[in-house]
């Protein structure tokens, strides 16, 4: 094989792209990944990872401010915004180097530049406007990810109206902030900025914040966030923005009346759209629909030899979904016996304070699907560890099919739940019934015991409540 010929070329090195590349190499394919900006994509550099680093700083700042609750003293508690941001960038930088190392270790060729398809099997790479090589591959996997969606009237300007890019690297914490959109991104930023001292208002067009989450869980999260001082307006949209030199006035319309608020900065967190433009899709038979590439359960598009995975292939826009989609795609290419992802077994996590984590059907969706359900609820206040931690607020909710005992959904809000949800995800993948969960010995004292109690509660056997 020549230098420009590969078995597999992957366009994009985000979590979908780089993980697929490593798996591809493991399967024995000669693999290349084309990356235009930074290895690790948005997730590592401008998404999942840096936000968690920022939120960690906020979390510790929060504890420092409440040191007295734990018998500690901390005076002159403060922060240096630039240092907080710098830590987050360093974390990204470290992981970015890590991905480079992993790709090298697995002998994946990294091609620097923007890759575009030129018919199936050919990828033309340009760098800074100049040609940087034409490559051939039997299989081309498009993993170009997504970018912030823009609503008319809310166009980001990098100065007053931010996307997550700008929100990730503030020079200083704004005095007041409007966050438009209350999905995971919007709420996480709202939570971060609020803890760091901004006066935050969140506007959401749907009737509840975190619209994909279970209504009861989202309701608890909302109360907690409001108690922290965040103002939340649901069922409303931002009708218009009026920009001043260093502030923005937003007109908020809830269908019945309008109100105006003036803030220092606005974060537009109204969703993301797939990067389907300028990737050469028009030179192939690949179809797109509603801003994402159309694929089957194995990442195959309408053009044989061209595949799409991750955000560019549609929701849920989650890194772990991209990773698994990519692995399924390349394993299918390799002829392994694989099954498409079951969307109902993909967990979703939101890392605000309190954290939210869930997998499977919400109570409403379960009922809508026709299930006769049993619901178990266990509040954090009933858990010893939660109280010892000083985190007595939260809920673990489990939903079972009454007829079969199948675990249909698990929804949690409270401290550390993003680390707990995997237990339910594993159980669902193994097709648990309530019996196995009841018989599982959860360690004491842990927050995870609430998972057990929630299952018991669904069957009228809760002990600690």
């Amino acid at each position, binding site marked *: 094989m020549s230098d420009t010929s590969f078995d597999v070329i992957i366009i994009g090195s985000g979590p979908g792209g780089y993980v697929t590349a490593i798996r591809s190499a*493991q399967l*024995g394919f000669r693999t290349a990944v084309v990356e235009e900006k930074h290895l690790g994509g948005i997730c590592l550099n401008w998404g999942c990872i840096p936000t968690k680093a920022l939120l960690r700083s906020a979390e510790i700042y929060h504890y420092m401010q409440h040191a007295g609750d734990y018998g500690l003293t901390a005076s002159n508690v403060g922060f240096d915004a630039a240092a907080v941001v710098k830590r987050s960038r360093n974390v990204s930088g470290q992981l970015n180097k890590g991905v480079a190392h992993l790709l090298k270790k697995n002998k994946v060729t990294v091609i620097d530049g923007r890759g575009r398809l030129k018919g199936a099997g050919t990828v033309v790479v340009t760098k800074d406007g100049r040609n940087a090589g034409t490559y051939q591959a039997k299989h081309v996997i498009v993993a170009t990810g997504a970018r912030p969606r823009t609503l008319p009237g809310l166009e980001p300007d990098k100065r007053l109206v931010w996307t997550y890019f700008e929100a990730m690297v503030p020079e200083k914490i704004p005095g007041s902030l409007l966050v438009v959109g209350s999905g995971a991104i919007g709420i996480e930023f709202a939570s971060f900025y609020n803890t760091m001292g901004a006066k935050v208002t969140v506007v959401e067009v749907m009737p509840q914040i975190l619209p994909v989450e279970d209504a009861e869980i989202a309701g608890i999260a909302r109360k907690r966030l409001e108690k922290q001082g965040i103002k939340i307006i649901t069922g409303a949209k931002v009708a218009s923005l009026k920009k001043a030199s260093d502030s923005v006035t937003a007109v908020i319309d809830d269908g019945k009346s309008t109100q105006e608020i003036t803030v220092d900065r606005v974060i537009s967190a109204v969703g993301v759209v797939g990067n389907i433009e300028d990737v050469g899709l028009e030179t192939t038979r690949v179809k797109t629909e509603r801003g994402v590439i159309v694929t089957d359960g194995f990442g195959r598009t309408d053009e044989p030899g061209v595949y799409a995975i991750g955000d560019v292939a549609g929701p849920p826009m989650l890194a772990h979904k991209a990773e698994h989609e990519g692995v399924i795609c390349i394993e299918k290419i*390799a*002829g*392994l*016996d694989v099954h498409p992802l079951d969307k109902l077994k993909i967990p979703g996590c939101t890392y605000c304070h309190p954290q939210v984590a869930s997998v499977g059907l919400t109570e409403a969706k379960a009922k809508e699907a026709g299930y006769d359900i049993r619901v178990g609820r266990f509040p954090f206040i009933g858990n010893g560890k939660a109280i010892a931690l000083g985190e007595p607020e939260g809920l673990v909710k489990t939903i079972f099919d009454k007829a079969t*005992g*199948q675990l249909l959904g698990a929804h949690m809000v409270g401290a550390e739940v993003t680390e707990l949800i995997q237990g339910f995800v594993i159980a669902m993948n193994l097709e*648990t*019934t309530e019996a196995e969960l009841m018989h599982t010995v959860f360690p004491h004292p842990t927050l995870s015991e609430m998972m057990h109690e929630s299952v018991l509660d669904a069957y009228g056997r809760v002990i600690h409540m």
Partner: protein
Amino acid sequence: MPTPILMPALSPTMEEGKLAKWLVKEGDKVASGDVIAEIETDKATMEVEAVDEGTVARILVPAGTEGVKVNAQIAILIREGESLDDVKVPAAGADASAPGAAAPTAAEASPPAKPQAPAVSTARHAAREEATAPKPTAEPTSAGAPQEASSGTGKERIFASPLARRLASEAGIALEQLTGSGPHGRIVKADIDRALSEGIAPKAAAKTADTAQAGAPAAAAAAPSAVPTMSDTEIRRLFAEGSYEVVPHDGMRKVIAKRLTLAKQTIPHFYLTVDVMIDELLKFRARINDRAPKGEDGKPAYKVSVNDIVIKALGMALQMVPDANVTWTEEGMLKHSRSDVGVAVAIPGGLITPVVRNVESKGLATISNEMKDFAARARNRKLKPEEYQGGTTAVSNLGMYGIKDFAAVINPPHATILAVGAGEKRPVVEGDEIRVRSVMTLTLSTDHRAVDGALGAEFLQVIKNLLEDPAMMLV
């Protein structure tokens, strides 16, 4: 080369059995003819003898394992000069023959089975090793022997998710029938859903090994499939948790349940009852027994019971009313020439029906002694399959429990069964007077497809007449 010891077939139709007990352990030396294990089928326990001499190198199937397929490797023997290192333990689920071939090879191998060359099993073992070796290029991960474990190759451990197990149990689907589509051939919910939508018949009609009646196939094929039943889960829900104990069924119980349910579902039973005056019979019996010659040990050569005489009467009646000595098949009526009478014997945990063959040509002493031997061996579960299979009629006697009369269930492939009640003194009308007589009530259950009412009545009348005047059995 190490010799595999294979699961023997105890009858031509046996497909699997339970390896009940090992009488040797690894390292023991055995000689040709030594009993090395006991195999249990639904009603009998058989001994397995070593055919060659050697040392037991490895026991592959632990004692108590059920569902061991005929010709499956159960142990490995090594001979002089061979070492344990030569022994290649076969892959889980690997048989010396393909599962489907069990029946024909069983017919050739009469117990105890001769060890066969293990060429097939080691070849398959080697193939599996290759299939699962890690390779850089694509290799199906679900290939190889593990998938067989859940594809119905007998009662080896079946891998199924907890949810799938529960769904299958509630729907009455036998996991053994399914092929799993989950990891490593695991049966998952999707497989149960698919089975339900494709209409896999519930357990009632599933093909499980049937080692009893050889003539059953026609009746079995006619068995209705989706007969609604309560699932185990539904039944258990009716009782308070902890108020019962679950005792697993042994082979005999399972076969009784299966065959008698089949009988009641497929045979149109009708019942005829008659009272027999047995004073003459009792005198007749006493006379015969009084004159029994004594053997060397002082014991009488025979002790005939009332039931023995009933067996003889039934056998003779079949000869006198040959149209009642039949078996129904779809193709035509089997008209039997011999009177083979099955006799129900209660044993601990169940019952079994050894068959006295050619009753028409046997004397009462022979019948009686045969029955004593059958009863003793039945209690120890040592009857051979050919001793309890077949027959042209049966008799069941609950008289010793004081039962006045009852109606028995016909055992396929018979067309009739005679239920005998207790002999007791009863007031009887003779002419216009009431007399006290010894009376015994008989109930004949009859398969209406084979024997109609009038014929059945005629048959029962002949039996009654023979019992009331036993001398007529000699005519």
